[in-house]
């Protein structure tokens, strides 16, 4: 104990410490407790990777998709890549990056590889672990442009329809996202969600004036471009691919939720808009049959 790490910090000169004082500090810690066990409800380490998503325990048990587009996109993509995983209902507070989804690799992975994977790194992780896919070249300008179209126009319309249409917000979003045991916290969460959706929309609208007509019209033209793209390429999937890829999963994550959520009848403009494009509805059906519907069939048969 005599060569204590005082020498390692070069800023302070080494001062000889009187023996009684050194002995006193050496006595600490007086008692070291064993590590606290994890709460009983914490998930057991499983061999299957776990994807943390916005969902309810019942939905996860029934193998139903998440109600959040970002989570649903990755759920779908993992399924398409043939990766066995389990979905776990969670909230943003659990994520290392502050937003869902994130993936915890299975216990079988080596120590270095068992770190949580955030959504930004999921593509690489899937490439390392899933079956080799023939996805479109990610630097294809058309793919990049259409991805932006989804991330801006359709996402804006989705945010507006869900959070800023009061009818939908009260019947859908509050039930999905603001379900803690404390009513006051729920109120606060609801305010926070609405406010952040509003701020998100204002980022591209410098006047901070949101016009539902413009937002829905933009989404309509985006859907129409997507429908034309799919029709022009002639195949079942976008960009003429033989198998659905990440872009199909992204489109599906919006179209599935827009088509299936129980929107308020008086505020279902987005759903009516999408219903006009049969080819996108058919695309959603095909992809659903290939992922969640098949998964459920498998579960019920086993």
């Amino acid at each position, binding site marked *: 104990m005599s060569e204590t790490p005082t020498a390692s910090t070069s800023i302070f000169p080494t001062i000889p410490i009187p023996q009684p004082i050194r002995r006193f500090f050496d006595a600490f810690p007086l008692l070291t407790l064993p590590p606290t066990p994890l709460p009983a409800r914490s998930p057991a380490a499983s061999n299957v990777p776990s994807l943390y998503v916005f969902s309810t325990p019942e939905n996860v048990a029934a193998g139903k998709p998440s109600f959040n587009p970002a989570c649903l996109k990755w759920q779908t993509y993992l399924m398409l890549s043939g990766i066995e995983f389990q979905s776990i209902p969670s909230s943003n507070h659990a994520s290392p990056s502050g937003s869902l989804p994130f993936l915890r690799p299975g216990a079988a992975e080596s120590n270095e590889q068992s770190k949580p994977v955030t959504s930004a790194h999921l593509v690489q992780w899937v490439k390392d672990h899933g079956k080799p896919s023939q996805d479109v070249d990610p630097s294809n300008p058309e793919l990049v*442009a259409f991805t932006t*179209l989804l991330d801006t126009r359709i996402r804006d319309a989705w945010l507006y329809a869900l959070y800023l249409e009061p009818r939908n917000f009260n019947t859908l979003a509050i039930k999905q996202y603001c379900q803690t045991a404390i009513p006051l916290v729920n109120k606060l969460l609801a305010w926070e969600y609405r406010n952040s959706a509003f701020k998100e929309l204002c980022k591209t609208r410098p006047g901070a004036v949101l016009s539902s007509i413009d937002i829905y019209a933009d989404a309509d033209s985006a859907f129409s471009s997507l429908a034309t793209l799919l029709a022009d390429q002639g195949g079942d999937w976008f960009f003429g691919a033989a198998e659905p890829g990440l872009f199909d999963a992204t489109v599906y994550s919006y179209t599935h939720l827009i088509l299936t959520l129980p929107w308020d009848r008086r505020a279902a403009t987005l759903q009516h808009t999408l219903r006009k494009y049969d080819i996108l509805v058919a695309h959603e059906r095909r992809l659903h049959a290939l992922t969640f519907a098949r998964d459920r069939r498998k579960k019920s048969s086993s």
Partner: protein
Amino acid sequence: MPSATRCPTTDRKYFGGVRESANHHTTTITITTTPRPSFLPPHPQPHMLELHVYGPFQGLPSIDAQCLAAIAYLQVTLPRGSYTVIASSNPWLSPSRSLPALRHNTRWLTTLPSIASYLAHLQSTDTTLSASPFSFAGRAPSPPSTDAFTTYILTHGQHLLDLSLFCSLPNYPKVRSAYSTICGFPDRYLLPPRLLSAAEARIRDLGITVPIPSLSPSSSTTASSLDPSPPAATPGEAALRTAAAASENRKTALKAPATRIRLTTLFSTFLDTLESQLSHERHILHTADPTLADCAAVGVLSLLLFPDLPDDFAAREMRKRRRLVAYVHDLRTRLLGAPVLDVLAVMRGEERSAIPWGRVERGDWEWLLRGEWIDSPLRGWFGINPVPEPDEDEEREGEEEDWEERKMRRRARVARRRQWWGSVATIAVGVVGFAGFLVWSGMGRVVTGETVVEVEQGGVRGRGN
């Protein structure tokens, strides 16, 4: 200010603008179908479109990418003389509080996609608007990826513009002073900080710390720390000097390379995507004529390339890509006209270039004090002449002027006078009615606290009966 209250002034401007444009472009007049004596001035065109934009910046017609794109799109799709571009630089004009905004009679279109779709709608109903300098004129179906590329260019290009114009420490003062030249009084101080904070919010989302210190090699802090020491310095002195400079700017010096790498990645992702999409074609979607995506591209790329800024990292990144630079130069000369030299001439609507500039109605104190925003009956009260007298020139010009128009003017004057008397009568009736009510309810007697309750109760009872 609601648009309706501005009508008297803008109507006048409409009139002048149409006449002027008709003189220049007689072809548009011959298309009008109504037979009309030749000595009469042409009908006020029903389709006088006004595009309100932010004013010029360093030779470009506008400081804002979307405004540039809108100007270019109107140049592409509409015949000359059917619209004016007004560098009002006043976002409060538009219902969405943002520019560009296209005004057509009482209708306002405030985003680039909505402007484009409205113009397509107009052209499908009116053939006079279809005679554009470009053959496609909105009739040929634009490729399905137009929307996608327009959105891509405007969204990602905006990030680069945020970086080079607002978030860069050396560049922002220049941009701010440009805004203060073009904006009206209160806005010249309020608008730039608002735009800055919006830009910073967008950039922070990308994970880049703002503001960004100077990145140009000549003035960067890392470079200054590596400056050669004076010749007389011993090696020890030189080392001390370097160490001192390094520790002084350690934080910035450590951060600068990382920031530079992030920025280079951002720029090359965007510009390389565009360049590979362009390949060796003349337009971005490989069409014969420019599309909306080309207009968006010329808006964003010319703001990256042309302005002369203290820290020119955006222009340097652009110049690395020869094909894109050639593409921007080509589009700029075709769609944005000659460089704008006199900003004030543009605001007065006197600049003569390919872009039909209109006179700016400034929304500042001077404009407020002139009282043109006040409705005509109210203006009567303030003693400001409510009847916009026709210009002297106009009177002289049309000596044997059409009796039709004179009759209309007289009728309008009578209507205005009637309106004035109407409002006077309304106010008089209101005042008399209120006085009557006071007497009837007994409130006239109410002076001090105690009686108030009784009187009010009495009033209530009285009304109940």
